[in-house]
C-alpha cells in the first residue's frame, strides 16, 4: 500500500446475512484514490455501489479485506474512532438529501461545525461560516426555510453547503442527482464540481449516470459486487 492514496481498498469483501443465507454484496474489491482526484463508481442498481461507498467512508465495516481512509486503516478503528476520523474531514451528499427536517437550512449547515472539537480553528463563528457556505450555493435568501419548504434542487444545494462548510478533505456523493430532474441535476453537479475544484477536495461519486461519470478523472465499474475495471478518462 502506498501513502499516496487518500482512499484505498484491498480485497474488500462485504457479506450480509439474509435469513439462513449469506449474501455477498462486494467481492475482493481493490482500488486506490489519490488526493484531489475525482473518481466515479458506476454500476446498475443493486450492484453494490452504495455498499462500497459506505465501506470506504467508514460508515460500515467490511467482512474481509482492508479499507483505508486518510491514512488510517478503518478495520482497526471502532465506530467512534471512525466517526472522529470523519468529523470535519469527510463530507457527504446523498440521493435523498438527508437534511434534518426539524432544522432550518442554516441550522442544517451549522450541524457539522458543532461536531468539531472546541479548539478546532475551522469552527470559527459557526453561524457566519454557515451563512457564507449557503451564499456560495446561492441560497442566502433561504436561510430560515425548513427542508420541506425548499425544492429538491435547493435541498441538495443545502446538502452541498453542509458538506463543504467544514472544508473536508474527502467528499462522498451517493447518486446526488438521483432525485432531481435533468436540468436541476446538471446545475447541482456543476456546483459540486466548481466547489471541488476550488477546494481541491477528493471526490468519490457513486452514480449510474454515465455522462456524469464521464466528467470524472477516473471511473470504476461495479458489476454484481465485483469491481470489474477502471475506465480512464
Amino acid at each position: 500500500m502506498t501513502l499516496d492514496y487518500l482512499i484505498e481498498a484491498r480485497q474488500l469483501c462485504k457479506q450480509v446475512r439474509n435469513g439462513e443465507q449469506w449474501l455477498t454484496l462486494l467481492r475482493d474489491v481493490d482500488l486506490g484514490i489519490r488526493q484531489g482526484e475525482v473518481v466515479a463508481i458506476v454500476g446498475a442498481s443493486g450492484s453494490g455501489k452504495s455498499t462500497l461507498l459506505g465501506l470506504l467512508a467508514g460508515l460500515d465495516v467490511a467482512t474481509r479485506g482492508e479499507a483505508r481512509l486518510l491514512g488510517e486503516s478503518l478495520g482497526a478503528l471502532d465506530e467512534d474512532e471512525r466517526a472522529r476520523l470523519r468529523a470535519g474531514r469527510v463530507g457527504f451528499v446523498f440521493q435523498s438529501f438527508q437534511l434534518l427536517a426539524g432544522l432550518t437550512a442554516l441550522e442544517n449547515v451549522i450541524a457539522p461545525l458543532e461536531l468539531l472539537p472546541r479548539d478546532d480553528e475551522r469552527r470559527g463563528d459557526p453561524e457566519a461560516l454557515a451563512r457564507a457556505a449557503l451564499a456560495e450555493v446561492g441560497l442566502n435568501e433561504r436561510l430560515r426555510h425548513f427542508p420541506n419548504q425548499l425544492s429538491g434542487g435547493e435541498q441538495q444545494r443545502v446538502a452541498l453547503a453542509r458538506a463543504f462548510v467544514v472544508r473536508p478533505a474527502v467528499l462522498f456523493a451517493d447518486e446526488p442527482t438521483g432525485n432531481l430532474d435533468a436540468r436541476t441535476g446538471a446545475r447541482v453537479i456543476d456546483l459540486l464540481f466548481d466547489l471541488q475544484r476550488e477546494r481541491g477536495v477528493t471526490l468519490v461519486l457513486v452514480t449510474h449516470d454515465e455522462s456524469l461519470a464521464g466528467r470524472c478523472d477516473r471511473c470504476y465499474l461495479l458489476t454484481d459486487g465485483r469491481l470489474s475495471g477502471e475506465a480512464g478518462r
Partner: protein
Amino acid sequence: MIRQLVRDWRSSEMRLLLLALVVAVTAVTAVDFFADRIDRAIRARATALFGADLVVTSSRPVSPASFALAEKLGLKSVSTVAFPSIALAGDASLLVKVEAVGEGYPPRGRLEVSDDPERPGQPVEGIPAAGEAWVEARVLHRLGLKLGDSLSLGDSRFVVSRLITFQADAGGSVFQVAPRLMIALSALPATGLLTPMSRARHKLLVAGEASAVTDFRAAVKPGLKRWEGLRSVDDGRPEISAALDRATRFMRLASILTIVLAGAAVALAIRAFGRVESRRVAIWRGLGATRTWIRRYYLRRLAVLVLLATGVGGALGFVAQFGLAGLLGDWLGVPLPGASAWPLFAGLVTALLSLFGFALPPLLALSRTSPMRVLRADAQPVLPSVWLSLASMSLASFAFLVWQAGGPRLAGLVFAGVLAVVVAMFLAAWSLAAVARRFAMGRAAGWRLGVANIVRYRRRSALLMAAFGVAFLVLVLLGGVREDLIDTWRSSLPEDAPNHFLVNIQRHELPNLRAFLRQRGIQRFRLYPMVRGRLLWRDGKPIGSADYSGERAKRLVSREFFLSAAEALPTANKLIAGRWPVAGETSGFSVESGIAETLGLGLGDVLGFDIAGRRLRLPITSLREVQWDSMQPNFFVMTHPDALKAFAKSYITSVYVADGDAAFTTDLVRRFPAVTDLDVRVLLTRIRRIISRVSAAVEFVFGFSLLAGIAVLLAAIQTQRAERRQEIAVLKTLGASRRQLQAAVASEFLLLGALAGFLGSGLAVLGGWLLASQVFDLDYQPPLLSWLAGTGLGALLLGGIGWWVVRGIVRVSPARLLREMR
C-alpha cells in the same frame, strides 16, 4: 380482518395505540366493576344492618292484611314486638328493652350470639327457644348473672342462654340506653306484659325480590293508618361510609386521570401512526383511492381496535376488580354481589371517546394526504388543524370527565388543571429556548447539541415536555393525595383511639368518674353534656315532618336530637362557615353541615328546641363538618355550655381502655351503676380493617395511572422515533461519536425532564392543595420538598429514558440507518 390485525400488531405505533386504549379501558372497567359491586354490597350491608328490605312499624299490632299481602307477593315476613320492661334477678332489677321476635328473624342480615362472654360471637340461625332469653352483655353485668342463670320477666322465667353480640335491626343509635333482651314471640303472651296499654312497638319486617318489595310498598303505603309507618333502608353507618366514600372518590379521580393520560398517549401514538401511514395513503391515492374510501378504511381499522381494546381491557378490568375485591375481603359483613355487565359498556364508551376524540382529526387529515408524497419522500404528512384537534380532544375529555366525575365541579377542576399544565409546558418550552442557548455556550459538543436541539426542535420539545409534565403532574398528584389520604385515615384512628363510650353520666358523678378514669391511667377524655330535645320551631314557625318530602329529613325532624355543648370546636370537627357559639346573649347553634343540608337549614336561621317542656331558641352561628369515623362523641347540634346551664343533662365521653384492663367494665358498673358502658371495639376493628383494605385498593388503582403515565412517555418518544433515527444517522455520518450523541440526547432529555418535573410537580402541589381542600376535605400541608424532588426525579427519569432510547440507535452503523431511510 384477522390479517389486518396481525399486520397492525407488527406496527409499533398500533401496538402503542392498543396499549393506551387497553390501559384506559382496564382502569375504567376495573374501578367501575369494583365500585358497582361495592355500591351494591353497601346497600346489601345496610339492608343487613336494617334487618329487612322494608319495615311496617306500628304502635298497635300490624294489620293482618299486610301479612297476607307479603305472603301473596312471595316475601319473607317476620313480626316483632319491642317494649321497655323490668327484668328481675334476685334483688336486682334492670330496665331492659324486650324484643319478642317471630320465626325467621331477621329476614335480612344476621344475628350473632356467643355462649361465652370472653369469646366473639358467631352467626346463628333461629331465635331463642321458649323459656330462653338472649341478652346483651350489659344485662349480665347489671343483674350480676352469668350464662345459664335465670331471670323473671312479668309472669315468666327465662334462662339466659346466650349473649347477643351483633344484631341486625338494632335500630341505629349506639346510644341505646336500655340493654336488649330477646325472647321468642310465642313466649310473649305467657308473660302477661303486653296489654293494649303497653308502649309497644310492633314491626312487620319484610324482605325478598326487589320488585316484590316495590309492589308491597306501593300497595301498603296508601292504606297506612295514623299509627303506622313505613321505613326502608337508609345508608349504612356514617362512620363506615365516610371512609369508603373518600376511597371511591379517589379511585374515580385516579381512573379519570388515567383516561386523560391514556387519551394523551392515544393522541401521540396516532400522530406517529399518521406519519407512518401517510406514505401508504399517498400510494393508494396515487392508485386512485378516494378520500371517502381511505376514511372508511381507517375507521374500520380503528373500530376493530376499539372492540379489541374493549374486550382485552374489559377482561383485564374484570380480573383486576377481583384483586380489588379480594383486598377488601368480607369486611362488609355480606358477600360482594357478582359484577354486572354495565361497566363493560362504560369501557366501550371510554375506548370510543378516547380513540375518536383524540384520533379523529389526525385520521381525517390523513385522508387528505397528497399523492405527491409518493414522489417527494421528504414531503411532510398532512397534519390536522391544531384548533380542530384541540377542540376535539377537549370536547372528548370534558365529556368523559363530566360523565365519570359525576358532576361538572371535579370535571372542571381536573380539566382546568390539565389544560393549565399543557399550556404552561408549551410556554415554558418556548421560553426555555433563549435560556438554553446561553447555557450551552462553551460546553462539550454533546451537551451543546442536546441543548441546541431543545432550541431548534421547539415543537418537539414542547410536545415532549407537555406529555411528560402532564404525566408527572398526574402521578405526583395522585401519589401525594393517595399518601395524604391514607395517612389521614390512619391518623384519624390511632392505636389508642377511644374504644369505649360512657353514656348517661350524671352531673354529681363527674368528679368521681374523672378520678376513676385517671386512676386507671386514662388521661385523655373529654366530657360532653347531653340533653335531648325535639326541633319544633324554625324562625318562630312550627316545623315538622310534613314540611319535608325526603324520608331521611322526615325521620330526622321527627326524632329527638342529642344536643351538646363545648367552649371550643371539638377535635374531629371542622368549621366551614360562621363562628363557634360564644357565651351570653349572642350565643347560637353550630349545626353539622350534612343535616343542615338535609333539613334546608342555613346560617342565621333561628332554631327552637323543646327540651323537657322548656324552650331553647338560638340562631345558627356556624356550620361544621364532622369526622364521623373519629370515635369521639359527635353531635349534629352543639352550642356553648352556658346555653345549656338551665337544663338537666347527662354527660358522655369516649375513652381508650387498654386491652389489659379486663376489669374495666365490671369495676365501672359497680362504682357507677347508672353509667352505661358501650364497648365499640368490634366496630373499631371493623373500621380499622376497612381502612387498611381500602388503602390497599387505592394503591392498586394508582397502579393503572402509573401504567398510563408510562404509555404517554412511550408514545411521546415514539412520535419522534423516525425523526431521531434520521438525525442520529446523519450526525453519525458527519462524524458524531456515540458518546457525543448519547450526551446530546441525554442532556436534551435531562433538561426537558427537569423543567417538566419542576412544572409538573409544582402544579401537582397546587392541584393537591385544591383537591384536598375542595374534594377530599383533608388538611393538606403543601409538600414543597416533593416539588424539589419532582424536579430532580423528572430530570433523572427523562434523562434515563432518553439515554435508553438512543442506546439502541447509536449502536447501529450509520450505513444501515441510512439504508433503512431510503
